[in-house]
């Protein structure tokens, strides 16, 4: 398997404060990487560097290099709109558009230039099926998405993300506001989606990281302390600091 995403000495500053420092790591295609660490450790900042979401925050700057498929995404000529299409994002709080379930997915397709009605219908159905939502909503596609439960809304947001066929999906605590059953559905979904996508997930829940990911990266105060296969991190981590964190000694 090849590296999909690669960070080399990536440092990100808010003003003069470095939120992440000299982070180097790579993510292989079709795997799930979990980012764990206490609040403020830089895991979300790192996630947002990948699709340049941090660009919109004033007074910030990036040093080092970040590549997707070998292309440097911080190169001045890099197409940021194209990047955000290739790299989808799912947030902690589900944020469906105040539109129908169907339109929530169709909207992104139209923006991407798909006009054919049948093609749109087919992609909507496929996306809802791959997020295991189709059976629950197929009879009310024209109803408002805001009438869905929190877990269904989050799966709709994932369906919306994959409808435009990204290559990478970033997830920032996608299940932290959900009940255990909805959380389990999202976690099962993540495992299914990795067949077609490369996924990076930020989670506060270490058990969740252990359940869904192939590799886990532990961040602390802006430093990448350790990245290893998830099973190794949770059975015999290389660094004592990682062991202390996952056994609840701090954080």
């Amino acid at each position, binding site marked *: 398997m090849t590296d999909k995403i690669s960070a080399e000495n990536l440092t990100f500053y808010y003003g003069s404060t470095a939120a992440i420092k000299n982070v180097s790591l790579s993510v292989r295609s079709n795997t799930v990487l979990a980012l764990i660490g206490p609040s403020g450790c830089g895991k979300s900042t790192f996630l947002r560097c990948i699709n340049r979401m941090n660009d919109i925050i004033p007074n910030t700057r990036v040093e080092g290099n970040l590549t997707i498929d070998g292309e440097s995404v911080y190169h001045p000529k890099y197409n940021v709109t194209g990047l955000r299409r290739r790299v989808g994002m799912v947030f902690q709080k589900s944020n469906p558009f105040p539109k129908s379930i169907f339109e929530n997915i169709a909207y992104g397709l139209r923006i991407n230039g798909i006009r054919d009605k049948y093609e749109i219908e087919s992609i909507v159905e496929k996306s809802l099926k791959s997020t295991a939502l189709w059976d629950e909503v197929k009879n009310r596609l024209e109803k408002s998405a805001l009438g869905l439960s929190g877990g269904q809304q989050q799966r709709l947001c994932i369906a919306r993300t994959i409808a435009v066929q990204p290559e990478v999906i970033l997830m920032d605590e996608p299940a932290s506001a959900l009940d255990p059953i909805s959380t389990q559905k999202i976690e*099962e979904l993540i*495992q299914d989606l990795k067949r077609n996508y490369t996924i990076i997930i930020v989670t506060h829940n270490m*058990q969740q990281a*252990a*359940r869904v990911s192939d590799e886990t990266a532990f961040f602390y105060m802006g430093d990448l302390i350790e990245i290893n296969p*998830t*099973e190794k991190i*949770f*059975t015999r981590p290389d660094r004592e600091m990682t062991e202390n964190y996952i056994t609840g000694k701090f954080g």
Partner: protein
Amino acid sequence: MTTHLEQELEHIKSRIFEMADLAIEAIARSIRALQNSDEGLAEAVLRDDTLLDNLEVEIDNECVRVLVTRQPAAVHLRFVLSMLKINTDLERIGDLASNIAREAVNLHGKPTLKPLVDLPRMAEICIAMLRDVFTSFTERDADRAREVIARDRDIDTLNMQVYRELFTYMAENAQTISQALGLIMVSKALERIGDHVTNIAERAVYYIEGVDIRHTDE
């Protein structure tokens, strides 16, 4: 819908069943090697024991991985815990079959003391118990597992009978001591195999019903 956890448990189960097949074969072949004084077959049993050893390590690792990454609960947790223990019992059964095979090699070429009847009978019971205990797993049938435990007494009885008989031989004729001691070792190995199958049956009851019947009157 089958979850990822259930798929992984199914995989562990199939590996354990593979191990059970190897253990059954090891018992059957080691006894046949002894009966037929077949040195080649005995050596094959010794060689193939590494297959069981490798599976033991592999299944242990797989169970640890599932515990860490899937965090099973309730029946799923009992399943993994049972598999971890059964794994060890099956590996030990393989070692005991190797002990029998080693005796077959030692006794090769020596005059036979008597036709072997009770030892093959004990091996047959062990094999039948093993088959039934794994059926109890598949069918989640705790009563069948309990029946397996009860049959261990038949093996113990045969073991004592073999001891008595062989002691008589040794008392009457000192020339028979080395062969008789070899056969006593075989009998002891089969008796221990019965104990390991009993352990497996107790783990089956634990998996199915969630009750621990070890060291109880059951």
